[in-house]
């Protein structure tokens, strides 16, 4: 089977989740859609089980922090349909005061550690996750270190600031 065209993929998603799923781009041909947090389980299940799409392979789950946005934390899913060789990227944006999102570990066993990692670094709480603990950082860490407010280097250091480079 050949690759599923992005328009076709988007049409199928629109049919089933009208208004809850919207396209945000297709950089380098990889369709990216933004999904509402309340339907993410349904969207993932639909993508996995639909007989024409079959996104059976969960490539990755991670997150991004955009401090200037209203919904600051974006949870990113990469799925891969092995039979049609199509990839799709899903984004769910969450605001800092409500970082809850349903777990995907009920759909893929492999989501377990990916979600633990995302929780560990960004503090996203995956509801229904069987074992949501920190995974790479020490258990008694109090912050979520991949958020932008935690600088890597000494915050007083100025020699690498962008304004020295005309930005």
């Amino acid at each position, binding site marked *: 089977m050949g690759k599923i065209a992005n328009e076709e993929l988007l049409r199928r998603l629109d049919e089933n989740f009208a208004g809850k799923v919207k396209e945000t781009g297709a950089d380098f041909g990889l369709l990216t859609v933004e999904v509402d947090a309340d339907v993410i389980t349904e969207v993932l299940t639909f993508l996995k089980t639909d007989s024409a799409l079959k996104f059976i392979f969960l490539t990755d789950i991670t997150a991004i922090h955009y401090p200037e946005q209203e919904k600051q934390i974006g949870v990113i899913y990469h799925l891969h349909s092995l039979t049609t060789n199509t990839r799709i990227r899903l984004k769910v944006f969450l605001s800092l005061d409500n970082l809850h999102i349903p777990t995907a570990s009920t759909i893929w066993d492999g989501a377990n550690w990916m979600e633990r990692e995302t929780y560990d670094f960004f503090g996203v709480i995956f509801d229904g996750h069987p074992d949501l603990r920190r995974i790479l950082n020490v258990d008694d860490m109090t912050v979520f270190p*991949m958020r932008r407010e935690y600088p890597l280097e000494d915050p007083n250091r100025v020699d690498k600031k962008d304004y020295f480079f005309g930005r």
Partner: protein
Amino acid sequence: MQNHPVYIDTDPQSEYSTLNLGPTHPATHGVFQNVLQLDGERIVSGVSTIGYIHRAFEKIAEHRPFYQITPLTDRLNYCSSPINNMGWHMTVEKLLNITTPKRVDYMRIIIMELARIADHIICNGVLGVDTGAFTGFLYMMEHREEIYEIYEEICGSRLTTNIGRIGGFERNFNQIAFDKIRKFIKKFPPVLKEFEALFNRNRIFVDRTRGVAPVSAEDALSYSWSGPLLRAAGIDYDVRAMEPYSSYDEFDFEVPVGENGDVYNRFLVRNEEMWQSLRLIEQALTKIEKEPSDIFHADVPAFYLPPKEEVYNNMEALIYHFKIVMGEVETPTAEVYHAVEGANGELGFYLVNDGGRSPYRLHFRRPSFINYQMYAPMSRGMLLSDAIINMSSLNIIAGELDA
């Protein structure tokens, strides 16, 4: 297989014993801790603790220009660092729309396949050691050394290679490098054959590995396994074949597939992959001869450092040199996901760029991290000695596991 966490029973009256396997147990070949609950020699439950060598690469990457991220990728799967390096360069090239010359692609394939062989040599050799056969490991290890000498000839270092640059290679392969590669592909096949003769039908080895830790295709997919492990379970997913990068589509190679995903199947799949890698290197060596021999990088002055003598004598080169080193080059705002077939699975780079001097966000899809999570659940009911060889054949590299 259920994915629920398994905790250790702390009841003092319990008849089970608790064993700390690792973090520095000699049999685990790396920093892995598994707290196992044992009933005699049988594992009742286990829980994995990881993160002992976590170095926050994703955070560091947010503060470095692209070319300075290559050394970070070295330290992911340090048994095959060139694949990581190339994967990262190709991700950036995809972002910047750089097309590399054919010769560069072939040179990359040679290096990546050598790295794959080096990685499989360690994994399969050590699997032999863990089942009690030291000899095969020694035969093979000698040839990993030869691969390291080839790296040395090309980039100067052996383990953490930092090989190649964005757009190509830092220098051309010299004649000695080509001679060493040719010598390797001539000398290695008889050794690999001997290695297979030592193990494939060896009664002791087969008894110890066949039927140990079998994984169904459904479980392997559900746990997002990739690479030789997924293929041993019967799914023919290979990034090189599905989404060919670096001109892999021009090459003739097969994707070996196993049947039931047990330790023996994984061993056979890795051995066969080494044969396929040798085929790929041979083809690449033939193809490379038809290409102009002085091309070893793409013509992208804004990203590829000019030769040093030009920097001293040519104004333009000096400007480019300064801009590249200071990370002052314009880059597009875009998101890229690029995957390469690492030695133990799909190694993905998810790069979010906002046009700044460093990535806005860089995430590594690390196959070891994702492959390892089935280890504790699948060990339940297994003998301790089987769990050890199961870990060997998963080929988990601590650097990649913990990033």
